[in-house]
């Protein structure tokens, strides 16, 4: 199983995500620099990490979404590779059009950095299959621009098609319909503001994120 983590200037969760990928897949992911124009043809899983790519210039994720490597990520997603965007990675995926909507400044205006209660809305997806539908879990968040926005028609479609993977179970950032994570229509791209890679080891204090990464591996094995 081949995985990769994209590294932009200003990414700061890339190594944490690499540790999570390695723990789940059993092999080290390739770290791919943003200027690279190609990914390995047989790549199974791509992580777009959190951080402050390009210093959040213009809009969070805007510059990273137009970097050369994102065209390769889009091609890999088209082929069916799994793409997981976390925090700034979610912003990059919406800015690049791989996921609908946009992430606005938090409604309260503050950077929010704490554990938050979440509900697993869709436990059928390739990313969330090891959770129970409606399960209450806790992941940390750390973001300024996590207020998910889309027009009502898009929100209705996301909900109707089971593409809301995770919802906040408490007030966090003003997100439309408390959306914390969404899937693309094919179900192989997940973007989410909370950080599962920060809760995978006993030493982290919580391990709620572990099953996300194990679930991805099971999903990939089932697909193969």
């Amino acid at each position, binding site marked *: 199983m081949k995985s990769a983590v994209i590294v932009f200037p200003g990414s700061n969760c890339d190594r944490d995500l690499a540790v999570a990928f390695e723990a789940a897949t059993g092999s080290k992911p390739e770290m791919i620099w943003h200027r690279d124009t190609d990914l390995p043809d047989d790549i199974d899983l791509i992580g777009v990490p959190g951080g402050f790519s390009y210093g959040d210039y213009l809009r969070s994720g805007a510059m990273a979404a*137009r970097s050369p490597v994102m065209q390769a990520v889009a091609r890999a997603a088209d082929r069916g590779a799994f793409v997981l965007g976390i925090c700034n990675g979610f912003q990059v995926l919406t800015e690049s059009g791989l996921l609908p909507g946009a992430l606005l400044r938090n409604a309260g205006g503050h950077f929010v950095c704490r554990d938050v209660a979440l509900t697993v809305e869709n436990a059928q997806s390739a990313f969330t299959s090891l959770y129970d539908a409606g399960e209450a879990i806790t992941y940390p968040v750390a973001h300024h621009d996590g207020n998910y926005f889309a027009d009502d028609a898009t929100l209705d479609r996301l909900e109707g098609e089971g593409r809301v993977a995770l919802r906040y179970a408490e007030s966090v950032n003003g997100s439309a319909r408390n959306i914390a994570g969404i899937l693309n229509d094919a179900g192989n791209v997940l973007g989410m503001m909370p950080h599962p890679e920060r809760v995978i080891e006993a030493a982290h204090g919580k391990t709620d994120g572990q099953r996300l990464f194990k679930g991805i591996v099971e999903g990939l094995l089932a697909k193969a």
Partner: protein
Amino acid sequence: MKARIFVTLKGGVLDPQGRAIQHALSGLGFDGVNDVRAGKLIELDLADGTSDEDIDAMCRKLLANTVIENYRIEKVA
């Protein structure tokens, strides 16, 4: 040739920055500020003859996120 691109949040999109500015103005004693919306001004210094289509494409492809923002182009001689 220069162009100024004004990027503003669409109506209905929450603007916490604008709201904070409004509160600060009220704190300074300026009453009667009903609402504040903050946006961006991007100035482009362009080669002569750059087409309107190209400037518009720059806005759509990068300068504005049309999911949440509107843009207005003002060409300056």
